[in-house]
Structure formats: C-alpha cells, structure tokens
C-alpha cells in the first residue's frame, strides 16, 4: 500500500487531534490490508481494532472522519463473511469510501486520493464493478483538488468505463462532467463546453436525473468565462426545476451566490446564502454557506456586522480548511476596516494553519494578504472604502438594486433577485434576511 501521503501528514501534524486522526486512518488501512491478505483472525486483529477504537476517541465528536473510521473498524471483522453476495467486502469498501469522503470534507485530499485509489483497485479485482466505478469517480475529484490533472483525467475515464460496465449511466455521465470540469478549470473553455454539451445530450436521452449536474457545471463554466448573467440565469432556471432534490438545490443556491458576487450583487448573494444556512438539511452545506457569507461580510458589510458574524463564527468547531479560510477572511475584513494589528494576527494565523495542513493555495493567499496589510499600513493616510455596496432602496414597494459598480442590473438579474427575496419570505424569516 502506498502510504506516503499518510506519513507526510503524520510528520506535519502539529496538533494531537490531527495526529490521532491521521494515525487512526493509517492503522485502519494497514489493518484492512492485513485482513484482506490473510483473512480476519480475532487473535491478531481484534487487538489492533481495539487500539484504533482508542485512537478514534481522540478525534472530536461529531466529525465525519470519526463516524467514518468507526464504521471501517466495525465492518472489518465481517470481511470474510459471505452470503449470497460478499457482504463483508461490500460493507468494508463502502465504509472506506465514506472515510475518503470524510477526509475530503476536511480538505485532506491527498489522503482521500490514497484511500480511493486503494478501494478502486481492490473492488475492481473483486468484481465489485459499481463500487470500483464510484471509487474512481471520487478519486478523479480528489486528484483535481490536489491539482494532479493527469491522474484525475485517468481516474474519470476509468470511472466512465466502469460505470458503463456496471450499467450505471449516472456514474458514467458524472465522470464526463468531472472531466469537463477539469478542462475548463485549466482554462480550456471550448473543449469543456463541447464535452458538457455532449454529456447533456446523452443525459437528456439516457439519464435525465443527471441533467441538473450538467447544468451546474455549465453555469460554472459560463461564470469562469466571464458570462456572469448567463451563469446566474442558468442556475436560477435550474433552481426552479429541482425543488425536490435538496442535494442539487442547495448546491445551486451556493453557486448562485458566488455568481451574484462576481456580478456585483453581494447583498442578493447574502440572501441566497442565508436561505441555505436556514434550510439546507446537510450540516456541511450549511457551514459552507456560512463561511461564504462571512467572506461577504468581510468584503461588503459594515464593521459591526463583520465583527458580530466573526464572533458568532469563531465559537464553531471547524474543519482545518475552514479554520484557515476563516482566519484569512477575517484578516481581509480587518484590513478593510484599517485594523491592521488584528489583520496581521489573523493573516499570520491563517498562514500557520495553511502551512500546517499543506493548503498551498491558501498559503499563497495568506502571504499575499500579509503583503497587502504591509502596503496598506504604509498608505494608512488614505482610508480604504468601507461598505462598498450601495444599499438597496425601495420605491413603490419594489426594491431598486445597485451593483458594486453602481450600475443597474439587467431586468433578468433583477427578477432573480426578487425571486430570491420571495423565497426568503416564504421561508418565514424575512426579518433575518
């Protein structure tokens, strides 16, 4: 088993919790390897599993990694159990995939990639084609997050083939969406667009359930290509059609908020994010929306609002990546309000966290932020603009929106903003929004 990523993570772990979490994961994978090779022997493996269970107790309660590792060690003793199907193998592979997802949620993408690669290979050798396809699909995403583009492409292609072999068109088409996302993320918009159009065509005929995901990817591409209005319109149209699918609905709302910010309507974006915070069933999605809204507060709200949301947020238990982002956004907010000492402290904290957990993109952003703070200190005489968004005014019961540039948004975008307000009203928390 390739355990380099785990060893690196252990060597760089600077807190007991992080060390215990990685160590428990590594030991679980080693136990899995041993059980897979030699079968489950209670005299040998029970002691190991007990030790892992003790390690797991040092992981904060409620984190997804803890739950996932718990299910791995619960499934391992059943490895050799067979019935009409190999139930032991299936449950262990599923538990390991859950563990990989938990690692991904916490931003530990290299570790997640390792786990997915292992499951993908073993499940394929076992003839568990569906699970192998799923593992390769997840591996494609993990590699993309590690900027390992080639491996990501290979994983997506294999996921496509295995998905077709498993008779699951949804996996095959999701693999193609992943491949298209890789293309446009690297700037190849035409190729990404072509692949998405092809995927949409196939999805329409063979697997309509996947169409919303194609639309989400198309909107992402449009936004990346600078077609903000189109991105907003596509996502908003999608929202009208996926009222019953919570997973896509809230992802679309978070995306819509990001596009609205890029378009220059942060106040409307904040409304979309508050909707997600108030109604999304998954805690991870709610937290994501909360963090995005804090970013908006740091860049567009008043000082009081920013400070209040920072205080509220700093009491939450966050994953390492989220902690780093929170510190970075706080630094950006403090800088905007000319509180340079606090900004410097936050940026340095973000830098330490980003280095500790190897979030290289965030290391770069934190370093840039430190330079910006230094630069702002030297020109302190010129105050930075406070809240840059003109507040939305009301006239004859209608809200008049203004973008950050002062321009009036197009009628289509105004309709989107009004609909978001209506959705918020329907949710019954208009005051809060």
């Amino acid at each position, binding site marked *: 088993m390739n355990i380099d990523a785990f060893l690196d993570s252990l060597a760089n772990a600077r807190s007991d919790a992080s060390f215990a979490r990685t160590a428990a994961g590594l030991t679980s994978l080693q136990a899995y390897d041993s059980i897979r090779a030699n079968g489950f022997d209670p005299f040998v493996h029970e002691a190991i599993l007990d030790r892992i269970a003790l390690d797991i107790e040092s992981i904060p309660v409620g984190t997804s990694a803890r739950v996932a590792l718990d299910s791995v060690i619960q499934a391992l003793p059943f490895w050799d159990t067979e*019935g009409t199907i190999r139930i032991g193998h299936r449950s262990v592979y599923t538990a390991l995939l859950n563990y990989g997802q938990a690692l991904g949620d916490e931003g530990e993408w290299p570790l997640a990639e390792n786990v997915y690669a292992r499951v993908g290979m073993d499940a394929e050798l076992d003839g568990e084609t569906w699970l192998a396809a799923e593992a390769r699909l997840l591996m494609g995403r993990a590699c993309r997050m590690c900027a390992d583009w080639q491996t990501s492409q290979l994983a997506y292609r294999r996921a496509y083939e295995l998905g077709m072999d498993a008779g699951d068109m*949804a996996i095959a088409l999701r693999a193609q969406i992943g491949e298209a996302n890789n293309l446009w993320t690297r700037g190849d918009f035409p190729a990404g667009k072509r692949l998405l159009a092809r995927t949409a065509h196939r999805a329409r005929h063979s697997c309509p359930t996947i169409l919303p995901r194609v639309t989400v990817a198309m909107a992402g591409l449009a936004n990346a290509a600078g077609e903000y209005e189109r991105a907003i319109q596509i996502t908003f149209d999608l929202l009208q059609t996926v009222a019953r699918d919570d997973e896509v609905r809230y992802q679309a709302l978070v995306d819509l908020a990001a596009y609205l910010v890029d378009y220059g309507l942060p106040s409307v974006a904040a409304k979309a994010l508050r909707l997600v915070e108030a109604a999304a069933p998954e805690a991870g999605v709610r937290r994501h929306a909360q963090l995005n809204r804090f970013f908006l507060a740091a860049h567009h709200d008043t000082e009081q609002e920013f400070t209040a949301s920072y205080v509220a947020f700093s009491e939450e238990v966050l994953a390492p990546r989220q902690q780093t982002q929170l510190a970075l956004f706080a630094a950006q907010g403090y800088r905007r309000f000319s509180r340079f000492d606090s900004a410097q402290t936050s940026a340095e904290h973000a830098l330490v966290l980003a280095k500790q957990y190897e979030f290289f993109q965030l290391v770069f952003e934190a370093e840039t932020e430190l330079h910006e703070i230094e630069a702002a200190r030297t020109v302190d005489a010129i105050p930075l603009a406070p809240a840059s968004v003109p507040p939305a005014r009301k006239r004859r019961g209608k809200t008049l929106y203004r973008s950050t540039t002062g321009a009036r948004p197009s009628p289509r975008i105004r309709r989107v903003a009004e609909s978001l307000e209506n959705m918020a009203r329907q949710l019954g928390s208009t005051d809060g929004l």
Partner: protein
Amino acid sequence: MRYAVLLSPQAIARVHSVLADNGAIDVLLDTRALLAELVSPHDEGLILDPALLSTSIADTIASSIAEYPRALIAYSSVTTAALESAVILAQRTSARFVFRGTPNERSLLEQAVLLLPDINLGNDLLVLLEPNLELLPHGLRRRLTTMFRNGDGPFTPDSLAAATAVARRSLDRNLSAAGFTSARRVIEAVRVASAFRAITASRTPLGHVAMVLGYKSKRTLDTQLKLLLDITSSKLRTDPLPSSEAANRLMIQLTAREPGKYAQSDRMPQKIPGSGRALKLVVDDQSNEDARRNASADK
C-alpha cells in the same frame, strides 16, 4: 407496485424521491407491524434497514421469506448493528443490499427499488436450469442462483469471473460445459429477468426501465427482449407473458448447447502417443466424420 418499508424517516424520504410516481409505500412503524406484514398474502416488496432489526427478528424474517417468498431490499449504513442482521439476511435470503453514504447511492437504490425481482419467474427459471446449474462449480452455481433470484450481479463477463474468483477462460469453459450459451447471454438474461416485473406489473415508463437497467434506450431493451423472450417491451406490458412461459423462453435461449457435450476432458488438447511434444487437435466425432467424407469425395 407497492412497497412495505421499515426505515428511518430520512431513508423513507430517499425511497419516496426515488420512486416518484412509480409506486406506493406502506410505512411499517415497528418490527411488530413488520412481522404481521410478513405473513400477509400481499406480494409487496420489502425495504428494510437491518440496523432497526435485532438478529432474532432477522432470523424470523429469513424463515418467513423462505416460506412466503418475496422481494427484499436491505438499505442501511455500515454499522455493527446493521451488519449483524445484514449478514443473516445475506446468508439466508436473496436480499439485495444497498449501503448508504456513497455519492451515487441514489442510482443503486433506484435500480434495486424499481427492478424488483419477479419471484415466480426466478423460481421457474431455476427449476428449468437446475440440470445445467448442477454441472457448475459450487461458487459459480451459487452466484448465478442469486443473480437469477434477485437480479443483482455483475454486468460484464469479466466482473462475473472476478466476483466468482475464477479466471475468465475458466468461467467460459465452466459455463459451456454446463450447456450455457455464453457468459454474456447469462448476464443479459439476468438483466432482462430483473426487469420483467417492472415491465409487466408497474406503470414505470418503459424508457425509464431501460435507463435503470443501464441500456442506452428503450430500443436496446426491446432488442434484448426480442432476442431472449421474443417479444417487445410494449407488447409485454400490454399482454404479459405468464412467468412459466417467460422462464421457458429464457431457458431455451440460455441453454442452446447440450450440457456435457463440451465436457472439459474432451476439450483439453491431448498428447499424441509416442511423441513427447506434439499435440493433437481435438475435434468432434461429427467433424472427423465430415473430414473423412470430404477426403474420400476428393479422391
């Protein structure tokens, strides 16, 4: 189609969203209601969370299903409580398992729920295929039996070989020795059989059935149905075949070969007596006869 479910509220919502308008759900509130449901004469599919069952209840369910066969789907997370009951169900029933927590769990659940196996067709087919299945090695026989019963299995011959822990060539050899036409034909037959109930007894659109089966379109489904059952999906829906007739047609397509004709010992290359190296090509007696006749005609 109707389904009796004993699941957590979140899982029930997921089943609802998968079913949409293609079926109805009877929610069972506790294991007592489940036990009452087990002996009812309705032919509903059962969807259970093994985590909500004790091992003794799982035992009872297994015994009851052996007596009153019905389609069973186990839908749960991976926990010790769930696994203990799940193992009993896996060992004593032909339940189909869907574990929660993977991104595409929905499509797997959709397959399991919409393609509920037709118990009678499965039983009839297994009775007809018994002489052939008897000739297979134990592992392969068990796997095929499960596949015919619950429609859950590998979709390619290579995965079937991997799942039964034999080499692909051995799989082909074993199947042909038992009189099966080919591994691919067996897999297609399992797929078609798994859709039989969805086509004949539900209102799920046929295009959707084809999609859930993993076919590109309804036309591909029709091609397979025509090949194996000699009927199209629309015709099958309007004028359903009795399960015994469908089983008979499937059996004929599956066993075009006579069992034992290509027994392994006959097909192995043999050494020519007196020669250390050379191998004699083994051909059928019939072919030998033909060759001799042709040679004499040439003379």
